[in-house]
C-alpha cells in the first residue's frame, strides 16, 4: 500500500511538475489531510492564485529521503513529525526555513516568540500539536469504563482486543505509565536497560490480544468493526470518527503523549518561493486556529489558542477536544525528541524482534 502511495505521489508530482505558480504538498490523507486542504490549501489558492497539489503518504518523512537521494524532488512542502524533522534536518535532507518570513501575532509578538518551545527550528515550523490517546468503544463496556493507562493493560476487567501503533515509540512510554511510572520519570526510566525490560514485560502481558496498526485511519475502523474494544491512536482520527460517523468512542486523556507536527521543505524543492509563502500563510495565527476547527489538533501558537472557534459545521466549541486544553493536560507526557532521535533504531529493532518472536 505504501509503495503504491509513494508511486502515486511521485507520478502526481511529475505530472504537475511542469506548470508554474503551484506548490506541491505532501500530507497524511484522511481527516488530517482534509484539514490541510480545507484550512490551508483552499484559502491559500483563493488568496494568492497559487495552486496547491496535495498528495498523501502513510508517513511523508519516508518519501523525502527517497526523493532527495534520487535527485528527483517533487514535493515543496511536507507535513512531518517533529522527531523526523530533526533527523532529516541533521542529515541535510531539508532546506532551512527563514523564521523571519513567518507572520507575527496580532499584538505584534514575533512568530518565534509566539510559538511554544521548539515550535520553530532550523528546518521545521510546527502546524499543530497532536497526541496519542487511549480510546474505548463505549458500547463494549456496559458497567465499568476504563479510565487510565493501567486499565488498557487489564484484560480481565476490560476484555477485548486492543490495537496499537506498530513501533516502539509511544507504546513503551504508555507501558511504563501503565506500570506505575509517573509521566515525568518515563524517559529517565527508558534510558536504563531495566526500564526497557520493564516496558517490554508490560507489553508482553497483552501481546496476544493486540492488533497492530500502521495507517492512522485503521484504529477507528477496527473500533467501529468491533474487532477491538480499545485503541491507542491519534486523537484527531478518533475525534473525526465521533464527529462524522457518530461512533460511540470515548477518549481517555489520562496518560496522553503529545508531540508537534509541522512543515518542512525537502532539499531542492522545485518551488521554493511558493513553499515559503504557503508556510507563512498557513502558520498565521488565524489560519492555525481555523485548522483546529477541522481536526482536534491544538495550535502550537499561543495567540492562536484563544481564536479557535466551534467545531466545523456545529455549534460546539472545539476547545475541550484539543490535547492542549488545560483539563486534558493533567498527567500528560510530552514526547521526548532527544530520546527518540538517539534510541529510535535500537528500540525499534528490539520491538521488531519482540513482535516477530
Amino acid at each position, binding site marked *: *500500500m*505504501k509503495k503504491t502511495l*509513494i508511486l502515486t505521489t511521485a507520478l502526481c508530482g511529475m505530472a504537475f511538475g511542469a506548470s508554474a505558480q503551484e506548490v506541491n504538498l505532501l500530507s497524511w490523507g484522511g481527516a488530517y489531510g482534509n484539514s490541510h486542504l480545507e484550512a490551508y490549501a483552499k484559502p491559500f489558492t483563493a488568496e494568492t492564485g497559487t495552486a496547491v497539489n496535495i498528495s498523501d503518504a*502513510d*508517513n511523508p518523512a*519516508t518519501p523525502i*529521503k527517497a526523493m532527495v537521494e534520487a535527485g528527483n524532488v517533487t514535493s515543496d512542502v511536507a507535513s512531518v513529525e517533529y522527531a523526523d524533522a530533526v*533527523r532529516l*534536518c*541533521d*542529515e*541535510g535532507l531539508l532546506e532551512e526555513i527563514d523564521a523571519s518570513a513567518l507572520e507575527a501575532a496580532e499584538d505584534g509578538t514575533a512568530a518565534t516568540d509566539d510559538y511554544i518551545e521548539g515550535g520553530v527550528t532550523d528546518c521545521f515550523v510546527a502546524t499543530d500539536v497532536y497526541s496519542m490517546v487511549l480510546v474505548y468503544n463505549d458500547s463494549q463496556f456496559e458497567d465499568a469504563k476504563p479510565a487510565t493507562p493501567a486499565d488498557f493493560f487489564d484484560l480481565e476487567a476490560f476484555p477485548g*482486543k486492543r490495537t496499537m501503533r506498530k*513501533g516502539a515509540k509511544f507504546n513503551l512510554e504508555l507501558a511504563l505509565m501503565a506500570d506505575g511510572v509517573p509521566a515525568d520519570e518515563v524517559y529517565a526510566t527508558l534510558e536504563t536497560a531495566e526500564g526497557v525490560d520493564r516496558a*517490554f514485560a508490560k507489553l508482553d502481558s497483552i*501481546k496476544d490480544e*493486540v*492488533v*497492530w496498526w*500502521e495507517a492512522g485511519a485503521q484504529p477507528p475502523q477496527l473500533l467501529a*468493526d*468491533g*474487532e477491538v474494544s480499545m485503541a491507542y491512536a491519534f486523537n484527531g482520527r478518533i475525534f473525526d470518527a465521533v464527529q462524522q460517523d457518530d461512533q460511540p468512542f470515548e477518549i481517555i486523556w489520562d496518560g496522553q503523549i503529545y508531540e508537534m507536527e509541522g512543515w518542512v521543505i525537502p532539499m531542492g524543492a522545485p518551488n521554493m518561493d511558493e513553499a515559503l509563502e504557503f508556510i507563512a500563510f498557513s502558520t498565521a495565527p488565524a489560519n492555525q486556529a481555523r485548522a483546529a476547527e477541522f481536526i482536534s489538533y491544538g495550535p502550537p501558537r499561543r495567540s492562536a489558542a484563544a481564536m479557535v472557534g466551534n467545531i466545523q459545521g456545529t455549534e460546539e466549541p472545539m476547545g475541550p477536544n484539543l490535547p492542549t486544553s488545560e483539563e486534558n493536560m493533567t498527567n500528560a507526557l510530552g514526547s521526548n525528541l*532527544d530520546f527518540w*532521535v*538517539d*534510541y*529510535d*533504531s*535500537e528500540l*525499534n*529493532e*528490539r520491538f*521488531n*524482534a*519482540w*513482535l*516477530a*518472536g
Partner: protein
Amino acid sequence: MASSLDPHAVIVTEAGSVSEGPLTTADGQPLQKALARSSRAARRRAFWLVAPLLAFIVITFVIPIGQLLYRSVHNDGFSANMPEISAWFAVTEPGTAPDEAAFTALAADLLAASEARSIGTVGTRINYDVPGTRSLFTSTGRQVRRGIEPPYQAALLEIDAEWGDAEIWAAMRGASTPYTDGFYLASVDRTRDIDGNVTMVAEHRQVYVMLFLRTLWLSGLITALTFLLGFPVAHLLATLPMRKSNLLMILVLLPFWTSLLVRTSSWMVLLQQQGVVNDLLVWLGVIDDGGRLAMMYNQAGTIIAMTHILLPFMILPLYSVMRTINPAYVRAARSLGATSWTAFRRVYFPQTLPGLGAGALLVFILAVGYYITPALVGGSSGQLISNMIAEHMTGTLNWSMAAALAAILLAGVLILYWVYDRLVGIDNLKLG
C-alpha cells in the same frame, strides 16, 4: 584462417574429409563462412528487435537493483564526511588507543560535518553499530561549532565522556572505509565485538534468522497447500467437456484478475473475529460468542490469504500440462490390470510433473517475496522477511540493511532455482 587450435576448424576438417574437400557455395566461398555471415546478419536484426526490451530491463531493473544491492556493502556515511579521522584510522593498527592526533582529526571533522549539516548522516552510520550514539555526534558537533580549545582530547572528553569509549572507536574504525560486511553480519543476527571477532547479537535483538526460516517454511507450506487444492481443480478443468470447463476456468481466472488489495481486504472482512465466517459459525452454534476463532492478524491469516491469492499460479501451469495428456494412457494402464491408484501414481502423475514443477516454483518464489498480504493480515506472527525489508526501506531508512536482507533472499531463491534445475531440469518447466 582456421588455426589448429580452433575447435570449429577440426569439425570443418572432419566434415570436409567425409565429403572429400571443403563445401563451397555457388560463387566459390567456403560454405562455413557464408553461413556464418548470413546468420550473423540475422542475429543482428533479431537483436535490434529485442533491443528496446533489453534496454528497458537494464534501465528499470538491472541498474536500480544493482545500485541498491551495492548499498549492502557500501555505506560512506561516515568515511565521506569524516576524512581526517578516517585517514588516521587508515595509518594506525586496529586496537590502537586514540591519541591527541586522533582527537584533533576528530574535532576538525566534527566541525566540518556540523557546518555542512552532514553530522546527522555520520551519527546515523555509527548508530547502526552502537545504538544510542547519534546525538553524541550531533550535540558534540553543535558544541564544537561554538568553539573548543586544544588539547582536543581533553576538550572532547569534557563535552562527553563517551568519546573515551573503546566501542565507539571500534565502530568508527569499522565505518572509516566505505566498504563493510557489517550489514550482512547484522542480517544473520551477528556483529563484531571490539576485537573484530564475529559474535551473535544479544538474544532480544535476534530476529532475522528466525524470519528467514519462517519465510521459507511458510512459503513451502503455502506451495504444498496450493498443490493439494489446485491439483484436483486443474484435473477437472482439463477433463471436463469444453463448455463446463470454460465456466470453471472463469471462476479460476476471475480472482486472478481481481486486484490483490481487494482480495486481501475481502479476506479481512471474512476472517476477522467479528467477520462473516465467525458470525456464521456462531449462528450455526459451532462455537459460542466468546470463543470466536482468531483467523486474522496471525499466521493463519497469512497462510489462508496467500494460499488463495497464489492458487491460480499453481492451477494454470498444471492445467496446461494436463490438457496435453492423452487419456488413452490411463485407460491402457487400467486395461492392463493397474488399480486406479497405481494408474494415477505410475502413469498420470509423472506426466504432470513439468506443470507441477513450474507451478511450485512460481508459487514458492512469489511467496518468498510477498509483502502486502502479510503486512495487512499477518499480525505479528505472520510477518515475513519482506516486511522487515520494507520496514528498513520506509521506516528506519536503513537502506543498506534492507539491501543486505534482500540480497540474501535473492541468493536463497537463486540457490533453490539451481537445485530445482539439478533435480528436475529447468527445460522441463512448462508455464502454460
